[in-house]
């Protein structure tokens, strides 16, 4: 027991230290130390893009965009961007503007929740008291990739879920969650940046299993002293097996440990994000920024490879005095071609740009963490006034370790319905992350030209 207590308090102090360091430095970021591979000039640096982890994140904006200003033309650095997309200008060569995709199951079922809860799954949703939909692609990825990281996925949001009934008789749970772990349950969403931050550290996620395994070991050891030699053999077998699992958990850390060493060599702290304060930032701008920071930190330090961020909920009640808009998000979206809603759209795109900037500033191998990621910015409809989701606005950033060509405008508007499925694109993305499925949602084929 003593060992266990000792071990536990070690962990605590480690985390406290990190927090303390951040606070003491009072600097939001100092991320110049790559975790994977090595910085140029470091001794024995080997860089291999294929060995870098690939990450996926979805950023969700509800109720559509201002379509007049949602366009892109050209390719690469010469790409022209609509007004709402201007924040992405620095990343032109690293983005793909995708037009014309849709989710069949989300159409013709009534507005809002039925258009949202299956955005990442593509399966039909059930109305009434019983929730039924499908597992979403981010959670499929998490199930396949999550064992190697502290958290299988980060599911974050800037607005609390609601679960009443919409007039369409769909549960508002569908409006509140874009990540579903099964056909009946959403993934609980973290709204507090401080708790999202904490979830990346020891004693959380997969690391929580350590405490349990430590305790089991203590018990088995104590017990082995009380039993016959034959029984002891069995308990030893159990102990060995438990240790084996524990070692696998520990394996999540060698790369991180290496990075820590490098950081120590250079006299810099590795993780230099200040732990967000408890509670909620008063300003939604600060809130969203912190959530992006947590994702960036998690991706950089490989604490997770999958994240979704619900910037606002469907039928959102967020409001934007700083954009000089007096109505809340949802009513504002009913006037979606207005200047107000353009400002709102642009503001949301700037969140994507912010996250891109963070990831771009993190060297990894010969590129950056952004190069090894795929960020997908998406809404549940194109037009908030018409509740039209026949062609969804999609903006991607990052090249998934060179497997995804970027700097393109992809237009599927004139393709047949079966050649412009969101789920086809999800299959294509999952392929590139090493998760090869025969089918997903309503798709059995990959997205052509992606």
């Amino acid at each position, binding site marked *: 027991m003593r060992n266990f207590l000792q071990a536990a308090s070690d962990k605590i102090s480690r985390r406290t230290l990190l927090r303390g360091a951040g606070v003491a430095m009072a600097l939001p970021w100092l991320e110049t130390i790559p975790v994977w591979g090595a910085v140029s000039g470091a001794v024995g640096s080997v860089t291999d893009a294929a060995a870098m982890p690939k990450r996926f994140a979805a950023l969700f904006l509800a109720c559509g965009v201002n379509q007049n200003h949602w366009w892109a033309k050209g390719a690469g650095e010469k790409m022209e961007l609509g007004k709402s997309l201007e924040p992405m200008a620095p990343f032109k060569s690293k983005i793909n503007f995708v037009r014309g995709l849709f989710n069949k199951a989300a159409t013709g079922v009534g507005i809002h929740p039925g258009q949202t809860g299956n955005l990442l799954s593509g399966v039909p949703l059930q109305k009434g008291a019983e929730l039924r939909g499908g597992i979403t692609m981010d959670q499929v990825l998490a199930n396949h990739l999550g064992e190697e990281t502290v958290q299988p996925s980060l599911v974050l949001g800037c607005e609390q879920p609601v679960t*009443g009934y919409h007039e369409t008789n769909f549960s508002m749970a569908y409006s509140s969650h874009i990540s579903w772990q099964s056909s009946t349950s959403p993934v609980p969403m973290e709204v507090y940046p401080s708790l999202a931050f904490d979830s990346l550290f020891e004693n959380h996620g997969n690391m*929580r299993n350590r405490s349990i395994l430590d305790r089991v070991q203590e018990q088995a050891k104590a017990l082995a002293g009380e039993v016959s030699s034959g029984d002891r053999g069995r308990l030893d077998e159990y102990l060995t097996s438990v240790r084996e699992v524990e070692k696998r958990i520990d394996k999540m850390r060698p790369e991180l440990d290496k990075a820590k060493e490098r950081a120590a060599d250079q006299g810099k702290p590795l993780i230099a994000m200040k732990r967000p304060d408890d509670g909620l930032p008063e300003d939604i701008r600060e809130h969203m920024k912190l959530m992006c920071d947590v994702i960036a930190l998690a991706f950089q330090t490989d604490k997770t490879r999958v994240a979704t961020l619900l910037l606002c909920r469907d039928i959102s009640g967020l409001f934007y005095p700083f954009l000089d808009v007096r109505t809340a998000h949802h009513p504002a979206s009913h006037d979606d071609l207005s200047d107000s809603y353009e400002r709102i759209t642009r503001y949301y795109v700037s969140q994507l740009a912010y996250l891109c900037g963070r990831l771009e500033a993190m060297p990894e191998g010969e590129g950056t963490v952004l190069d090894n990621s795929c960020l997908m910015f998406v809404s549940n409809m194109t037009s908030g006034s018409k509740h039209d989701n026949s062609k969804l606005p999609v903006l991607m950033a990052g090249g998934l370790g060179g497997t995804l060509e970027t700097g393109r405008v992809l237009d599927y508007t004139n393709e047949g319905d079966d050649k412009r499925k969101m789920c086809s694109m999800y299959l294509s993305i999952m392929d590139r992350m090493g998760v090869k499925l025969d089918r997903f949602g309503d798709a059995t084929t990959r997205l052509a030209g992606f």
Partner: protein
Amino acid sequence: MCASGCASSFWWPSAPGKSLFAVVAWLCACATGNARGADAADFEKRYAESVRPLLETYCSACHGKEQEAANKLDLSLYASIDDVGKAHARWQKAIKRLEAKEMPPDDAAAQPSEEERRAIIDFLKAFFAEQAKKNAGDPGPVVARRLNNAEYDYTIRDLTGVDIRPAQEFPVDPANEAGFDNSGESLAMSGALVKKYLQAARQVSEYVVFKPEGFCFAPHPVVTDTDRDKYCVKRIVDFYKRQPTNYADYFQAAWRYKNREGLGKPGATLDDFAAAGRVSPKYLQLMWATLTETKDEVGPIAQLQVMWNDLPAAEGSKIAADGREPEVVRGHCEKMRDYVVRLREKLEWKFANLVLKPIGPGSQPFVLWKDRQFATHRMTLNRSALQVAGETELAAADEKPDAEAEAGADDDDAAKKKMTLKKPVADPELTIPADPAGRARYEDAFERFCKVFPDAFYISERGRIFLDRPKDKQDKGRLLNAGFHSMMGYFRDDEPLCELMLDDAGQRELDAMWEELDFITLAPIRQHTGFIWYERAESHTIRGSEFDQFRSEDKDITSEAKIKQFAEVYLAQARKNAPEDGNAAEAIKAVEDFFDSVNAKLRWLEQAKLASEPSHIKSLLEFAQRDYRRPLSDAERDDLVAFYRQLKDKDGLSHEDAMRDTVASVLMSPHFCYRLDLEVAGPRQKALGDYGLASRLSYFIWSSMPDAELLECARKGELHKPEVMTAQARRMLRDERARGLAVEFLGNWLDFRRFEEHNAVDRERFPAFNNELRQAMFEEPIQFFLNMVRDGRPVLDLLYADYTFVNPALAKHYGMTGVTGAADHWQRVDDAGQYERGGLLPMAVFLTKNAPGLRTSPVKRGYWVVRRLLGEEIPPPPPNVPVLPTDEAQLGDLTLRETLARHREIKSCAACHDRFDSMGLVFEGYGPIGERRDKDLGGKPVDANATFPGGSEGEGLAGLRQYIKQHREADFLDNLCRKLLSYGLSRTLVASDEPLVEAMRKRLAQDDYRFNCVVESIVTSPQFLMKRDEEKLTSSDNFHSGGSLRSTPATR
């Protein structure tokens, strides 16, 4: 093993003749009771001098070094008699082979003389008998073993009350030599499995639901808000649906009470009839009083009383004799009910929405106000629905009713539209006189009626109530919803149910569930944050910058201070626009009440959450105690609580997360995952403690953990007493958990444990074989076995019974008529012989399992009979045996029977096939899925005749039964005893178990072959009650009989 030639070897120095003489003489000495002559040293001497030379002469050429690995006897391993003693099982097989003259094989270079053969056999038997006697009752080698997958699942089920079955994700368990997967011999542990255990423990911990008092397990995971909602709502709605609210049932029960003498139950009380009619006794009393006690002169109750008095009486003894009542009674009662329901609908209340701009009627304060109006008026009269003769303004007969006011989804629209109440149509049932006295009399009568017959007992679903839509157009499926738009929130409306129908216990149960709903789902918090969101995003009530400081996501949004501030700002806005009339005052009051009630609920929740934590720790300790299947020591309790605190206080987990992780750690504990047989005391053979016995007993009979009664016996220290063990075993065999024994013991013994996954049937050729039929086939032997156990039927029924059990699917397959109902309806069919069924032998599960798809397999079927059922050892087939076509239709001119006959012409094949082909050929009248047939798939008529080993002949099922009865019944009984003992002791049998097997056989014969008696023999045996003290056991004692572990699944 038989195919290879046996070259003889003459290198052994001792001449066979001399050896024979010596061993025979020695055996005589044993037989004459010269005990001293038969000690260990003597056996050693005889073995070395006499028996071993014989074995060398006739056997060593084939049974040489390293044959053991190939599952053959390796004589080089048995230099001394001690070595032989350690390999009891292997040598038992050798004895059988020698006795059956399978060994040496016919093509061996030299055969022992009859005398020599006998001498070897007799020596070995004498040796093992002596061994057995010396060590009789040795508990045998039972090491700590993890729960196997089935035990894990059953134990989780009984521990949590939820059949979660996490072990479905585990790899299949390997079986031991006896074919069971419940022994330490075969149950290994690995890192991969620990990982599965960890996932399983986590999975189970997600089912924990935390209540104001303690925790329990929900039927599904309850980690997400939506799952918590589902759990709490479903429980309440299920409770509502269970309530007897059909008035006809009450009228009928009252009629029966009235006619109790005519029905032959003069002494029965009203409560008795309530119980028999499954209605609420409390409400029946009220109904009885209403119908009989005071006579109403006017109004609906008077009308009901007339109808009541019109009910026919039970007519004397004729009806009483068969307990039936006139059929018209039910119809009459239903008419009375319909009258009440129809009239009550006409008296329903209507309430207009409150409006106070900009607060719309869909805002929480106003919706809840309206909910409350309905809820508090369910048992009162809506006077405005009555029609005063000559006064009420009525619609003309041809006038169309006004269109129902239907508001759009948007609140503003709803507020704009004024509800236009249509003029009522003249209705005699609602008409009351205009004169004040008469009017009062009628109104009182209606009031009484409404009090007894509420307009609803409870409301289980509610659409958006502020839209005032007609019932059939309201939103469906919004269970317990308060009637909001988009916001979550619940409203309780069941006062009539509580007041009129539920007894105190029922009310407490319902109260608790509603309290738990708030507690578990955090409904008050979520409803409040939803309110703020809605007022901003949907109703636009809060647009001013004075509201900017209130956000749903703020952590302190539910604090008392924040709520007061919010109420102030909100009310200020309401008052600003309020017109100076009574309606506005009521609306403002509704808003004030709303904030007060929200705050009160939130404060209660805060307190309740804090207050609940110690009770969760208490639950945790109770859970751990059940999980360990024994009381916890003080140190263990402290340690557990310390672990929880560690997680919570130092690791920073929330209370619930820390609890869940602690629960997971308890499920990962070796005290749970392993069966340890701790608590032993005394020298050499140690008595198992009573708690250890409780687990042994429960895992034997239930494949699961002990229940409370068993643990209570252990706590009292009584379980080791034979009479208590016996009584408990009997009780447990009658319990439905004995299904564990049926599935795990019978299923593994008879090799159908995995039949639910059987996929060898070509479903296109056999469309009758679907999942439902497969499941039914799997279930038949289980139902049969359980019935045998429960009814104390003889085990010989397994062979000879003329009955079986079928459900509709299986009955159809068997051509039995008259079996209807659901798939889980099983009924006994007697005279099953007319369908060629009855007992285990012709069960479709075995016939299908042992057929390779498009043909039958007399080989597999026969092999199953002799090996599985009769326990005969048959060596595995040699490599390179010819393969039969997979389809009967491809056999050409020969029948399967003829093809097999050819195979048996090869001598080495015949050695085995002669022993079982016949027992499969008798089943040729059953096709590949066990269906009856006259022709095989090649179109040839089937022939079910067979010549059994020993030369007797017979046909079909009857022939096989007769053969078994005459020649093999003892084999069957012996095998049953051995298999059950091996299963019950969780180990392979050893020599010292022989006397117990013998005793079991005798007990069967003496006790009408009842299954339960052999169970009782086992659970009162020293083997069962003791644990071997391995440190003190010497090598010459009774060690584990060895035998390599098979890494095959328990059944294949």
